[in-house]
């Protein structure tokens, strides 16, 4: 029963199957013969068979047990806030409140207030479905779940008794896989919203694998980009207004492919970024890529590493970091699960005058030890004082990175 036998023809295979169907014991050899064509290349070694999403206990890490992170010389890293279970998205209110979203574990929205030493964490919404996407504008906090976007008006005046949310947009598909959101207002005043592919790899319906934008009241849907598998972080270039986004590529291809992407939208509405046909601008998909060419899709602006899970990204718009960081993009690499060798950090993508990425370098490290996650960065926020906040959902904490005195 070597695999060669199956090439003797369907008649033989069918006969063999008929004999085996009566047997109760399933042998390894038999399973191999039955492997469906699209599962070819799936992991077979013990190492690969041990891959699974990584979960920390559902308890935030005490401040004195948080990992000691490293930044380049001259930078200081401190704990900004801890005890925020599943801390994910970061936004700042006009009055200085730091709003924090969460995802699978907590299902909550938090508000962090107060100065250092007197900082308080309040839960302002609970029992939400995967409320990863938040945004703040005009005194209102916007919260996006896979199903809908809501708005909490004058939220900073009522953190202890938040108002009933107003529904802004409720026509989202509501999928669990890649249904959670990252949302942000653009310089055009529109709210940008992604709808990820509802799968690891599939030919998605036209409603999915895209970024669209709407007016602040939920009207006027316009598609901005297609072929986007799952973006959980984007920002607008502070000078050109162009939308840049991170995109998480498919699982299960191999340890080192595909490479996750940093993308740049230069022609809103008319670019396709490849999913599910082309990954990383480099390779066609082994199932969906036949008859396709990577030349037909927009190439990534930069490659961010295999299964890197790049999430939040921000242009550095402060003026406190050294000159080379100004206008560069900080990117949180949450780190892979679908890869045996783990890594995670906050990296920096440096841009030249024309907006080309010249290099991507690690900036904040110390999230991995002995191939285990000590922490996992999710979102970033440039503060008015020029410091950078970094959320960590593994520990339920927020770090502050500052430069000089």
């Amino acid at each position: 029963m070597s695999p060669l036998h199956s090439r003797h023809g369907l008649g033989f295979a069918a006969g063999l199957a008929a004999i085996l169907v009566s047997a109760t014991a399933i042998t390894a050899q038999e399973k191999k013969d039955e492997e469906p064509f699209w599962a070819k290349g799936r992991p077979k070694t013990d190492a690969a068979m041990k891959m699974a999403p990584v979960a920390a206990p559902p308890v935030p890490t005490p401040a004195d047990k948080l990992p000691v992170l490293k930044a380049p010389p001259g930078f200081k890293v401190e704990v900004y806030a801890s005890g925020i279970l599943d801390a994910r998205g970061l936004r700042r209110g006009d009055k200085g409140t730091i709003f924090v979203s969460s995802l699978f574990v907590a299902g909550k929205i938090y508000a962090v207030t107060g100065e250092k030493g007197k900082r308080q964490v309040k839960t302002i919404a609970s029992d939400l479905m995967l409320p990863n996407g938040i945004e703040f504008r005009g005194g209102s906090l916007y919260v996006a779940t896979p199903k809908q976007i809501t708005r909490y008006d004058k939220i900073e005046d009522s953190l202890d008794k938040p108002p009933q949310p107003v529904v802004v947009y409720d026509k989202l598909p509501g999928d669990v896989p890649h249904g959670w959101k990252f949302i942000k207002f653009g310089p055009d005043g529109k709210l940008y919203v992604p709808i990820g592919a509802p799968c690891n790899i599939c030919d998605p319906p036209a409603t999915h694998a895209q970024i669209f934008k709407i007016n602040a009241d939920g009207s006027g849907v316009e598609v901005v980009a297609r072929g986007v598998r799952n973006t959980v972080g984007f920002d607008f270039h502070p000078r050109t207004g162009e939308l840049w986004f991170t995109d998480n590529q498919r699982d299960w291809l191999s340890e080192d492919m595909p490479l996750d992407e940093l993308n740049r939208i230069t022609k809103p509405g008319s670019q396709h970024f490849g999913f599910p046909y082309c990954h990383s601008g480099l390779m066609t998909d082994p199932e969906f890529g036949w008859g396709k060419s990577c030349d037909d899709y927009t190439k990534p602006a930069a490659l961010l590493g295999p299964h890197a899970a790049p999430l939040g990204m921000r242009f550095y718009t402060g003026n406190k970091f050294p000159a080379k960081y100004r206008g560069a993009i900080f990117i949180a690499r949450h780190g892979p699960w679908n890869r045996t060798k783990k890594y995670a950090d906050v990296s920096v993508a440096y841009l030249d005058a024309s907006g080309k990425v010249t290099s991507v370098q690690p900036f904040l490290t110390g999230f991995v030890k002995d191939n285990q996650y000590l922490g996992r960065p999710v979102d970033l926020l440039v503060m008015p004082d020029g410091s950078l906040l970094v959320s960590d959902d593994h520990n339920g904490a927020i770090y502050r990175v500052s430069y000089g005195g």
Partner: protein
Amino acid sequence: MPLLAAALLLPSVQRAPAASLREQIAQCATCHGENGQSQNPDIPSIAGQPKLFVMYQLFFYREGRRKHADMNRIARAMSDADLQAISDHVASLPAPPPATRAIDDPARYRRGAALAEQRFCQSCHNADYSGREQMPRVAGQHEPYLLKALKDYRAGARIGTQAAMAEAVRGLDDAGLGDLAYFLARFRP
């Protein structure tokens, strides 16, 4: 179910930690069986489940993010320390012996096995489906319970610590989920 009702009314807060823990553990046995091995096919065996899995389910019940009236009520009184202690205890119980249920429909068993391979079940749940970390042992679990869990994941009524289960069951019909439950409940290494 007078016994069950009585057990559920036991106050579990504001007691000496040891007594409280003992009482909470006694409550588990009321439904999940002596030593965590359930005789009721709608209720899962919990003995020997990975600690992180148990801790997460208690957490989800406490937060109301996994729905079951009795479990929600019981878990609501648990502190983070209780979650730790109870999940430690449950994980330390000897796992049930391997499944002995008859494979009375071999074709169905094979369909379930093929689906489990296609959907990468073993990558997370281990080659022998014994579970680890936040992922439960599913080998030998009660079939009706497994089927309900799979349907809940498909419907989004249960989500878990990641989207992995939603992706795993995506697009499967009731027959497919039934085959998977049949196979796992009877799994032979």
